[in-house]
């Protein structure tokens, strides 16, 4: 047996070295462990949520006053229009329809223009004192749309400070979100592969079929025995091709149980079929569509359109749950549910990308080779 690892003794040896550590060192190690935890998986998730909550507070403080001011302005404008109309009506002692209509039409048109400008500046039609756009859940959804680059736009900062803070928030938040997604996608993909592999061991025929296909098979651990010159083992890892001498006996070894856990051996890599990933994504989108269309009174097409546009980070913002013209009861909960849907959905998509990428690249390469675009240079030295 050519496997010998002495790492465990080395590691335990170092533990006895620093027995008497000063408090400063302890503090440092504590800090280090804390940051290590923060950048580990759970910590990252909490960091993203915490960052969004912090953003929600900041944006709410910056933008909610302006929203109130704006709503007040529109109300003022409407009342001024009414007063002007009254003045028109009052001034004309004899009411001729054409005269009056002409004057009133100009007034209404001006009212409409000002109203549209106000709507583009963020007015949403709700009365003063009703539920605001920049409530806490609204601001939370807004922060999420910034750092996921969805960017709905139905709520958007109108003050200069809000815009500056948005810029800075995005510069820090977008890489953080990408980090979160890659991490979460990694974990979810690993666990999904594990579960899928477990389920697939019930069907041994798949395993053999996979084994015969040279390109999918990955040699994890090749030990060359019975050869005078080479008694060593090749490094474990993912290798596509292994060159061995013909006289060596090549044996694929299973992972022995007595090896220490920290060697990070990789089990044979289960490849999840692409169709399964696509089914997962489509069902998540459809599930969200059903929920949102039931709540918002949209039809199913609008619901799935919204879910697709959200999860692909396009984010038009024309359809957003909890954001209707007439003030709705329960809109705050809808916004929170929408945020949760967003976070989970993006993690799922990251997982599916992680699962699919090898297969997709493999298939594209096959396709290209068959069409003749890609030269098949590495077909000659495959292991037969």
């Amino acid at each position, binding site marked *: 047996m050519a496997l010998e690892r002495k790492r465990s003794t080395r590691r335990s040896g170092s533990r006895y070295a620093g027995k008497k550590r000063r408090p400063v060192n302890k503090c440092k190690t504590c800090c280090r462990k804390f940051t290590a935890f923060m950048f580990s998986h759970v910590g990252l998730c909490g960091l993203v949520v915490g960052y969004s909550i912090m953003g929600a507070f900041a944006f709410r403080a910056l933008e909610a006053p302006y929203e109130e001011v704006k709503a007040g302005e529109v109300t003022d404008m409407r009342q001024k229009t009414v007063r002007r109309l009254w003045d028109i009506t009052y001034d004309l002692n004899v009411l001729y329809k054409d005269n009056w209509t002409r004057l*009133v039409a100009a007034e209404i048109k001006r009212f409409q223009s000002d109203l549209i400008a106000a709507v583009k500046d963020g007015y949403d039609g709700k009365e003063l004192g009703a539920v605001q756009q920049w409530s806490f859940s609204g601001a939370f959804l807004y922060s999420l749309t910034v750092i996921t680059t969805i960017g709905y736009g139905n709520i958007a900062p109108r003050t200069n400070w809000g815009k500056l803070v948005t810029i800075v928030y995005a510069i820090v938040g977008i890489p953080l979100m990408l980090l979160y997604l890659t991490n979460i996608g990694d974990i979810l993909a690993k666990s999904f592969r594990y579960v899928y592999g477990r389920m697939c061991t019930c069907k041994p025929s798949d395993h053999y079929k996979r084994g015969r296909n040279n390109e999918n098979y990955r040699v994890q651990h090749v030990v060359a025995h019975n050869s005078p010159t080479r008694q060593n083992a090749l490094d474990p890892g993912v290798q596509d091709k292994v060159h061995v001498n013909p006289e060596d006996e090549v044996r694929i070894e299973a992972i022995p149980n007595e090896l220490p856990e920290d060697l990070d051996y990789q089990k044979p890599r289960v490849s999840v079929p692409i169709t399964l990933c696509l089914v997962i994504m489509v069902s998540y989108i459809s599930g969200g569509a059903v929920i949102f269309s039931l709540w918002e009174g949209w039809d199913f097409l609008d619901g799935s359109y919204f879910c697709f546009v959200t999860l692909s*980070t396009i984010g038009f913002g024309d359809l957003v749950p909890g954001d209707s013209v007439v003030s709705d009861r329960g809109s705050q909960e809808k916004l929170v549910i929408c945020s949760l849907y967003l976070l989970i959905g993006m993690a799922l998509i990251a997982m599916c990308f992680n699962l699919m990428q090898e297969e997709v690249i493999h298939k594209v390469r096959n396709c290209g080779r068959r069409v003749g675009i890609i030269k098949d240079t590495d077909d000659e030295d495959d292991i037969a």
Partner: protein
Amino acid sequence: MLQDLENHEEAARKTRWKHCLRLVAAYLFSDVGVCGLAVSYAMLGALVFEALETRHELAEREHVRQHRADCMRDLWRITNKLNVLYEANWTLAVGGRLREFEQTVVNAVRNEGYDGREVEALELQWSFPGALLYSLTVITTIGYGNTAPKTSLGKVLTVLYATVGIPLMFLCLLNAGHLFARIFKFSYFHVLCVQCRQRARISKVREAVRVMLYKHFPGNSSTTRNQQQTTDGNLEPSATSQQLNGQVEQQATDSDRLCTDNEELGVTDNLITSASENERSTAAQSVVSSRDSDSSRHELVEANDVVLEESLTDSSDISIESRLHNTNSSSFPPPFSDHTNLDGTCPNKEDNPRPKEEERVPVYVVMLFITGYIFVGAIMFSVGENWNFIDAVYFCLTALSTVGFGNLVPGSYDFNTQSQSAQTRLIICCFYLIFGLAVVLMSYNLIQEEIMLKFKRISRNLKIMPQNEKS
């Protein structure tokens, strides 16, 4: 026999067709092809969406006008009904009716995509430039939303369009970013950064000299090493000599390239170029068994560096000089002679291929470039759209990070200015977006190694990652 011939001809034709198709497919999926494919895909989307959505937009304009007419008719009815005009009554009724009108207008703007233009206005949101901007925002996932499909068919088509278009655009931008990165690196290292060029040249000369010196005169075991190397045959020495050849040839190339300008390193360049003219020389103590002109070049370089730098404290320096002087005194040219060849032209660059640049563009240069691009865009949009500067910077940043809120979009209808040249502004916005995204991917291409290295170093310092993990 005739049938055989026919079959043969047909088979030949078929193979020719297949070959043609293969060439076309290969071209389509090459770099240029993907970019062209993405652009034509955007234009195709623009045409389709324009055809689908224009009708709805015009219909919506008509609806708003209808609402306005209804409102006025109701107001007249209110006014007419009250025989005696009490202000409070009338105001209440009119205020209520106006509030309803306001709701319909707000609904039209927020949910139906009404942009405030009248029925008679000629410009549409869903004109060809507008639809092109829309297609671009879909496949780059910016997604403004000020122009968004309202018909069912438009929404279904948007979903399908995005499914195909987003990977395509991503590939196209990757290629464009790669190309831009190469151009940027080239212009940075060979045009902008004068210091880099000089530093590169000096360091390479020094390196060649040091390797040479170590090989020839490594100190105590010089003689034994020499004997070993000579007995080993031609393999090892020629390998290192080839290395040196490459380095010194590179020196020759660099100097030849700049043969029309600076003469600060003139002496070195002189000796190198003139050494290339010396085909024969009697090299002393050469471990290199292949006695060609390169060995003399090495010694000349070495001697020259000793003369120039005088930084080597090896005791055998003087012995080198004296030895070389003895053997090659005749071949030292006068110091500031002409760089160029004997016939007066610059030596051909194509003879010596330049090795690949291993250096990386520093991060701050790339950041500076991006910031410059954003500022240029901000200035352009603040002038063209009458936004204030913060708004323009905010727009550029949200567009280039693909967040894309959509409350500020160039080329949209503005009540205050009521400008009419929306189409040109839309086209400019499209170009800015595409180039900006390519610039973002280019910068990612240029700095990713640096960032990964720094990140790994930081995490190793913080002992987050295990220390024996190789990068």
